[in-house]
């Protein structure tokens, strides 16, 4: 009797092939790492195993005769508002495997996106707008703890700054490439980010998988991460970057750890992470030396001591219900930068149930944290970096008006180098050569081209930010930070506007 699992009968995507256009060149077969396409020599035709398709559209992109179209499977269950296709397919997979469902990238569920309910002001008549093409427009940003006051002293007739300023990060755009580990993505993507960060005068973040030896030369444009697994963390690594980030949590999977499966731990990754080849790389859910704000302070200062107080220390948390209270603790623990990663933030692998149901939007956490730190009079002591669902320069600008000093972009970074959000990063088979360490696939990313695309992305966002600043009549990004009066809300409840600290449009 013919038997096939139900998941092979009901599937998400359907590969449409125009047989008149197809020249049987088999490019699709070679490009698809999920083995969807196959060649039948007896008939001289290409076939497709539709159920294997993840919808990444690599084959469509590579097809020289434009004969392929990836479509959603038209065949469907009886529509049901409660039992959506997502729920039904998940259930089928679980009844077949008994496993936790995994996913990649960020939360794709239809929760409210607050960026889309905020509108930006512009100058008319009384306060002139500025033309950014002809007038200087300052985007430069300094991240780090700012002193409560500045004291000066006169030395040999010259006024000198007496207050000691703690280390600051200077970035030319308020945008940085977010933490994605070497392991989750490959060295070509890391190198692309490093090269782009250097050219742009910004920073990229190593994520928790250590720093490959060949990238140490990009240290001044690198934030090195120290997470609970401490992979590749050693004195040389800590001193290699411009700043150190303690990763407590991640927006895509608040409260849970990481897990790089053993089959992804190749020789080069094992060398960088300093673990044996083929061994699972487990990041515990908590740092087991941090159970309190006092313990966090201990790690912050251990890192500062280990780097002789030359580098700012950042603490990254997932946006959760009580982020504001946690953030004030982090500020008081001595962090120079707080990173708030919202529940739209991406991941290489997360249980779907966690990604889709745990955490809160970055927008709300950001507004709450900024307000709390202001209320307590310690906002200056720490910079805020927000991440998790920043899609364009408007989101960056709105984040800054809500109180952020800068943003991290991860999902946008990956899309700039080719990612099409198929959400299968955890398989290690990324057909675009990004979330994979298979050498055959990884070489699909050329670091130079990736860097160029990233430079283009950030530069274009920079120009757009300058345009909006001009319209706002502001000539420095600094003047927009936490300037929520320049935002108005549309379609939000009173309570949401209260939390965001914005007035409704029209008022």
């Amino acid at each position, binding site marked *: 009797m013919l038997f096939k699992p139900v998941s092979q009968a009901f599937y998400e995507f359907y590969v449409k092939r125009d047989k008149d256009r197809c020249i049987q060149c088999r490019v699709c077969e070679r490009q698809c790492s999920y083995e969807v396409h196959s060649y039948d020599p007896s008939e001289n035709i290409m076939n497709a195993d539709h159920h294997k398709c993840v919808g990444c559209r690599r084959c469509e992109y590579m097809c020289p005769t434009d004969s392929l179209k990836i479509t959603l499977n038209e065949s469907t269950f009886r529509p049901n508002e409660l039992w959506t296709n997502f729920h039904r397919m998940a259930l089928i997979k679980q009844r077949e495997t008994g496993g936790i469902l995994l996913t990649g990238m960020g939360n794709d569920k239809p929760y409210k996106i607050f960026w889309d309910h905020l509108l930006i002001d512009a100058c008319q008549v009384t306060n002139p707008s500025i033309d950014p093409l002809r007038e200087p427009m300052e985007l430069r940003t300094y991240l780090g703890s700012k002193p409560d006051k500045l004291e000066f002293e006169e030395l040999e007739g010259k006024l000198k700054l007496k207050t000691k300023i703690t280390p600051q990060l200077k970035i030319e755009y308020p945008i940085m490439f977010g933490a994605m580990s070497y392991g989750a993505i490959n060295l070509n993507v890391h190198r692309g980010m490093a090269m782009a960060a250097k050219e742009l005068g910004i920073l990229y973040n190593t994520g928790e998988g250590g720093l490959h030896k060949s990238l140490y030369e990009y240290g001044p444009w690198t934030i090195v991460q120290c997470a609970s697994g401490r992979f590749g963390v*050693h004195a040389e690594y800590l001193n290699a970057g411009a700043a150190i980030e303690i990763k407590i949590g991640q927006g895509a999977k608040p409260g849970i750890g990481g897990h790089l499966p*053993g089959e992804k731990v190749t020789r080069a990754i094992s060398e960088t992470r300093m*673990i*044996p080849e083929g061994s*699972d790389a487990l990041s515990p859910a908590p740092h087991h*030396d941090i159970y309190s704000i006092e313990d966090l302070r201990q790690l912050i*200062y251990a890192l500062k001591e280990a780097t002789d107080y030359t580098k700012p220390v950042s603490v990254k948390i997932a946006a959760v219900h009580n982020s504001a209270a946690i953030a004030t603790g982090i500020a008081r623990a001595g962090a120079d930068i707080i990173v708030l990663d919202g529940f739209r933030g991406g991941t290489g692998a997360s249980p779907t149930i966690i990604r889709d149901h745990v955490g809160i939007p970055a927008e709300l956490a950001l507004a709450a944290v900024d307000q709390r730190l202001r209320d307590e009079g310690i906002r200056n002591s720490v910079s805020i970096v927000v991440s998790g669902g920043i899609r364009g320069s408007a989101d960056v600008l709105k984040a800054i008006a809500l109180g952020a000093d800068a943003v991290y972009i991860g999902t946008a970074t990956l899309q700039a180098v080719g990612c099409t959000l198929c959400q299968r990063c955890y398989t290690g088979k990324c057909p675009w050569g990004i979330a994979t360490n298979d050498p055959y696939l990884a070489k699909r990313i050329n670091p130079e081209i990736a860097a160029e695309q990233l430079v283009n992305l950030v530069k274009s966002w920079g120009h757009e930010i300058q345009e909006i600043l001009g319209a706002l009549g502001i000539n420095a990004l600094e003047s927009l930070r936490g300037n929520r009066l320049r935002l108005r809300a549309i379609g939000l409840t009173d309570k949401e506007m209260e939390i965001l600290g914005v007035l409704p449009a029209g008022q």
Partner: protein
Amino acid sequence: MKRVYEIDANGIYYRDLNKKIRDLVAQGVKKFILRNVNGQRYILDGIRENIEMDIYGVPGQDLGAFMDGPTIRVFGDGQDAIANTMGNGKIVIHGIAGDVCGYGMRGGKLFIKEDAGYRIGIHMKEYKDRVPVIIVGGKVGDFFGEYMAGGVLIVLGMFTKKPSAPICGDYLGTGIHGGKIYVRGEVDSYNCGKECGIKKVDPKKDNVLIKILREFCEEFKVSYEEVIKEDFTMVWPKTKRPYGNLYAY
């Protein structure tokens, strides 16, 4: 600059003390003697020189964190998080130690003569010739060797101030997926994580044990013959991939 430098740490703020040590290391001092140490934290954190340091008193948390090379001997007790993410070197504690020592350690040795707290040697990992070693002469608390990914952990249970306590707490080696844990005497399987394999070993026939136990005994001037009199229980990972089947792909 003299090669041996003595510091009376009495009343010195940790940051000033550590700054002074870092400056002296940079100037080429190879050996330090610290007296009257009383809880100063972060001593020798991140230091990458092969220096030696004798500490009299009780150093504070995170002694030798991220360090890569130095040898520290503490003639007194230690506190929490000793050898945190240590890269290389040696730390010898002539007394008891606190919790979470040797977290993420990836090289070097930590010898604790007497008892240590909970979560000792968690998430240790090894890479090629870098094999971290922790020996506790007394007893340890819960979660000894949790998430262990490499290296060697040994607990003797001999030099203890807690005669009625078990040699190890619960959840011994839970999540282990690399490395080896040796416990002198017996260990009940219900004390161990589900990822653990357990077997008896004769220390006289185990080359790993012989070498490092000799070093431990010489360090503390205790009888090697006495230590190897009893059989050890070895706890080892049944798989390098404990959670491989947990997920639906």
